[in-house]
């Protein structure tokens, strides 16, 4: 008998009688308004919010705030004028010196300020992790309340890799002192795009 057969046989004989799955949970209505909550939580976890109404404002902001940075890359064609051309499809190790990566998220979650980003929006999986600083563009209309809404939105979407990213990389492993920028980005800027 292989280990596989052995394990499966033992599981089958030892597992208890059937127990039903509980009812699905949904977002409990009430509490804070989603966009306000998203902004508050993101700030609490070390991220920065920039509210914009169009991509020109984002491009201007990047030019001003990151003007001393050498290597800026983006997956967004709207930001081609302020970022490096032809960076795509290289060996993932070659992005080690990227100062700022600007990518898009499918949506954000108000309760924890996490942004859902799949591989197709990253170009290369390593991009949002290896860059020194990360910026993410998300539509104001795409902020959902809780993780239950998030997975309803993801539903049975196909992806090879996807991640909820909430704020900059961090650690508190040394005496519980919070330090931003463990291995991944040292900062995270979220461009909240939309009217009002």
């Amino acid at each position, binding site marked *: 008998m292989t*280990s596989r057969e*052995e*394990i*499966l046989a*033992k*599981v089958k*004989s*030892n*597992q*208890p009688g*059937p*127990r039903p*799955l*509980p009812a*699905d*949970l949904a977002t*409990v209505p009430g*509490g804070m308004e989603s966009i306000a909550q998203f902004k508050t*939580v993101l700030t609490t976890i070390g991220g920065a919010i920039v509210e914009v109404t169009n991509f020109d404002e984002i491009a201007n902001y990047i030019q001003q705030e990151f003007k001393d940075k050498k290597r800026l890359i983006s997956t967004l064609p709207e930001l081609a004028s302020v970022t490096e051309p032809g960076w795509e499809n290289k060996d*993932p*190790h070659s992005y*080690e010196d990227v100062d700022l990566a600007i990518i898009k998220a499918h949506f954000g979650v108000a*309760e*924890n*300020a*996490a942004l859902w980003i799949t*591989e197709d929006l990253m170009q*290369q*999986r*390593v991009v949002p*992790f*290896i860059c020194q600083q990360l910026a993410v563009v998300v539509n104001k209309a795409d902020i959902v309340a*809780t*993780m239950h809404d*998030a*997975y309803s939105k*993801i539903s*049975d979407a196909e*992806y*090879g*890799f*996807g*991640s*909820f*990213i*909430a*704020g900059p*990389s*961090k*650690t*508190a*492993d*040394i005496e*519980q*002192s919070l*330090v931003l*920028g*463990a*291995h*991944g980005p040292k900062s995270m800027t979220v461009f909240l795009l939309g009217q009002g």
Partner: protein
Amino acid sequence: MSTGAKDHAQLSDIFNEDEARVDWHDETLWFVRAKRDKAAHGLPEWETLRETASQIKDNVLSNLHDYLLQFEANAEKNGIKVHWAANGDEHNKIVHSILKESGVNRIVKSKSMLTEECHLNDYLHKNDIEVIDTDLGERIVQLAEEPPSHIVLPCIHKKKEEIGELFHKHLGTPEGASDPVFLTAAARDHLREKFITRKAAITGVNFAVAETGEFVVCTNEGNADMGAHLADVHIACMGIEKILPLRKHLSVFLRILTRSATGQPITTYSSHFKKPRPGQTMHIVLVDNGRTTQLGREDFRNSLKCIRCAACMNTCPVYRRSGGHSYHTAIAGPIGSILAPNLDMKNYADLPFASTLCGSCSNVCPVKINIHEQLYKWRQVIVKEGYADPKKAMAMKAMDFTLSNPSIYKIAGKAGRWVLKHAPFTVNNKLNLWYKHREMPEPPKQSFGEWYKQNNKND
């Protein structure tokens, strides 16, 4: 962790030699527990979430056979190679053979309590493979040649000055530098070089979804992602109990995991690995190592619901004041004390006794494991199977004899009161373990029996 023959009480004595450090350890973990409370109380539906998570896990355990098959089929369809390991040794051999086939002898590894449980690092080291732990806390204890003392905060027992010394010795930071921001930056540079140059990465698994064949890895540092997305080979190691039926169930577990662990609303990264990236090979090792046995123990199977948040450790008055290393097992604290005896009842017979049975662990457990009840039940099993500490077993027998014999009970009571009154030095000394941290009580003038007799007569 090999500790010779020392048990939890003896190892705690070593930890307790430095009282100031014990106080600091206690307060630091209580601070984490307080953050957990704040996060939990911030959600009015918290108890519903706990109950739902618990019920999903009940369903998983009752249907694990089919879910494992479904997960395997879907993962393979996604291009992931699935391996099965009956025990820690087989797990280590599988990992080693994958690395050998890939021609890799230097790897990075993100946090995985399973690989700690299986002693993978030791095994690979013996086979000339260098493992760099990339979680900052784990890297620190690795440099110190110690095991983690906490499953979420591996070096919570270390002071920043000690970490500064380690970094000075191993990473070349200036002597005396102990600022956490500075030390973290030094570790970032040190580990970046490892991420960039290593061709294989090992990660743990927080959740695996039967419906889709994907698995989720949660970190705050981003070290699992840095390792996996740069490596040609990604090996993910998981216990068979990590399965969830449906993708949407992740919503419940991602809501409770980090709130329970550190009080954050979610970890910085909750990464869903479904397919290898083009050109990469991805492996999953499914490990039993005693889990199927635990599944068959009706009183203890609920321990398999654990999602490794460590809330039970942070709240435990015994863990906080005895330190993780005194549990001499990969997973310390209350949950570790109900998992370890399943693996080796003799070696871990002391652990279920390392508890006041106050029940705080069960109260904070996000998947509602009845931890303190299981601790109590393990004590009975251990005594019945003959693994109890002989001193304790002898005392219990003497107690049993005295309590089941009224005349001996009366004599013993009288003798006890006489000794406390006339010869306190015979009990107020080091030989009496009870006296170690306590004063002996004032002896009453008479027993309740004597009092009752006297007062009844007067009526």
